[in-house]
């Protein structure tokens, strides 16, 4: 049981931008906090700083209000599950599980009890005598988990533990890990690049980009009120559609169409260029000539829902001549139009979000 606090913690490599830049983050006691971001955003570095495998160049990291900077990994009482599991290849599963306890000089019978209990929790009783080379990927993953939980540490660190599993097993294991963490009630920092994993597992989710913390909150808040355009596009699958727009007296003009805005939002936004954010589910297909004209590029059918990837006509990006990403719309698969069809989109004005065109920060209606 522990709290973890990052206080303006930075990791600086020579000659490149800071890998982790002035990170302020608190992980509450017993909480599962997911650190998510695109590859190279510094999330694994953050984890390794807490593990003691990377130095903290500036700032501080506290576990239970005590600084761990300069304390070697072996004395931090923190367990880590590595992305590649990193099982000891010359030891059996039982020896792998019991190794940390053996090093901690527990009695043989105590080690045996705890190893068997952990193996039972994770369904590994059958393979206790096997070597890692004889295990399946899913079993290796569970041994790696078991090696962490058998120690009953203050903090768990998990570095993309599911990334080497196949899609089906990943989904199943995802919920198992979350359930296990809740049962054990151990403070956990979980790193992933997969925002679905982050949203489904995390008590709270911290979004990191280029070493800078963008937002940390419960999943629903991240989804409904992203702090900036990056979080808006990163969270959600598919992410939020972002379009260039200009604020006018009636609303926001995107290309040749004007979308009405709630009064408070329009007043706060003032005038000038903004980034308009629209979730795929906040758009409906209209047929009355009043919607935004678009052409269907691709339709993705997922069974219960379908996503249309459409090209908007006369969008602001046409000016610069750059290719804009397709505008994504979620529709009922029964009513999905075929590729190439011209459609009209009706954007629900109450779910439109505006972001500053330069800083990307969300414009919050007053």
């Amino acid at each position, binding site marked *: 049981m522990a709290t973890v606090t990052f206080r303006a913690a930075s990791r600086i490599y020579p000659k490149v931008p800071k890998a982790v830049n002035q990170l302020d983050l608190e992980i509450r006691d017993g909480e599962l906090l997911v650190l998510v971001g695109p590859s190279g955003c510094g999330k694994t570095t953050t984890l390794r700083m807490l*593990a*003691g*495998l990377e130095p903290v160049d500036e700032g501080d990291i506290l576990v239970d209000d005590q600084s761990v900077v300069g304390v*070697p*990994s*072996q*004395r931090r009482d*923190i*367990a*880590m599950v*590595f992305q*590649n*599991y*990193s*099982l*000891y*290849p*010359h030891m059996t599963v039982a020896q792998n599980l019991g*190794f*940390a306890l053996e*090093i*901690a000089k527990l009695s043989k019978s105590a080690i045996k009890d705890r190893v068997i209990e952990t193996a039972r929790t994770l369904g590994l009783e059958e393979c206790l005598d096997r*070597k*890692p*080379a*004889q*295990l399946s*990927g899913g079993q*290796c*993953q569970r041994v790696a988990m078991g*090696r962490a939980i058998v*120690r009953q540490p203050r903090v768990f660190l998990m570095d993309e533990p599911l990334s*080497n599993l196949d899609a089906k097993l990943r989904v199943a294991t995802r919920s198992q890990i979350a359930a296990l963490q809740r049962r054990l009630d151990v403070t956990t920092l979980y790193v992933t690049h997969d925002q679905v994993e982050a949203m489904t597992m995390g008590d709270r989710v911290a979004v990191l980009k280029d070493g800078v913390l963008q937002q940390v909150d419960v999943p629903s808040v991240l989804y409904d009120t992203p702090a900036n355009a990056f979080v808006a596009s990163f969270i959600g699958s598919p992410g939020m559609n972002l379009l260039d727009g200009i604020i006018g007296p009636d609303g926001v003009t995107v290309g040749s169409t004007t979308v009405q805005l709630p009064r408070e939002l329009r007043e706060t936004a003032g005038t000038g260029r903004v980034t308009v954010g629209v979730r795929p589910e906040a758009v409906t297909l209209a047929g009355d000539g009043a919607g935004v004209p678009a052409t269907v590029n691709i339709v993705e059918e997922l069974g219960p829902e379908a996503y249309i990837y459409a090209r908007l006509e006369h969008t602001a990006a046409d000016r610069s001549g750059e290719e804009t990403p397709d505008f994504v719309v979620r529709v009922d698969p029964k009513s999905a139009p075929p590729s190439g069809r011209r459609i009209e989109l009706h954007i629900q004005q109450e779910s439109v979000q505006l972001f500053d065109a330069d800083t990307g920060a969300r414009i919050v209606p007053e």
Partner: protein
Amino acid sequence: MRALAERFRRASATQVMALSVLSLMAVFFAVPIVWAVFEAIGGTALHWLLNSAFYSTAGAAIAVALCIPAGYGLATHDFPGRRAVLIVTILVMLIPPNALVLPLFLEAHAAHLLTSPLAVILPYGLYPFGVYLAYLYFNTGRFELLLQTARMDGCSEWHVFKRIVLPLSLPVSALIAFLNFVASWTNFFLPWVMYWSFDTTSRYPLALGIALQLDTTKGASFYGALIQLHTASSPSYIALLLLVTCAPVLIVFALAQRWIGSSQLQGVFR
């Protein structure tokens, strides 16, 4: 050893019986051959053979004992002068061994080790190529990851070395031991120089012993001896000695190759 015992315990009665019969037959056929060979080469040659075995085994053992920690330290720890040590290791590795014989002779002389077995064991025990091999073996990302895992598990540096590094260094140890053994077993020049005094023939390794059969006036005209081949010992005797010289290398290879090719790191990654 424990693994071997374990395998024995698990073997079925049929397997044990088959193994016993096969061993008995092997002994039955091998004993007369071995007896004939050693009866023919006689006591002195046997003595040289044992000398060779001792020198090469001791040299290889020292080499492994030094190369593994040295290579491990160079590969995984950063200390002042690490680069310099690595570069010197590679440079020394590139020098032909025969070019080092004279400096080694002078060194052994200064240390009063000439004509002592240490003079032929130590130059092989200090094995830069082995250090480099061990360095390459340990200098991989997956090894680094295992060490970090062990440290997270609470291991001190010594525990990491003893519990993780040593057990996993078996393949590279076997390779170093084998290469070192063969090199010192087949070497002629170094012991020939170190055992320069004529009263040391009892300490000769087999390679020098064979030469002695060719030339009984050592040092005077070694190449001339090749011409007098027939006058010293019978060619068939020398041929037998050469055969006996080759055999241990084959045996050591047969023993080592099991480990050389084995992938100890299998299962670290998925």
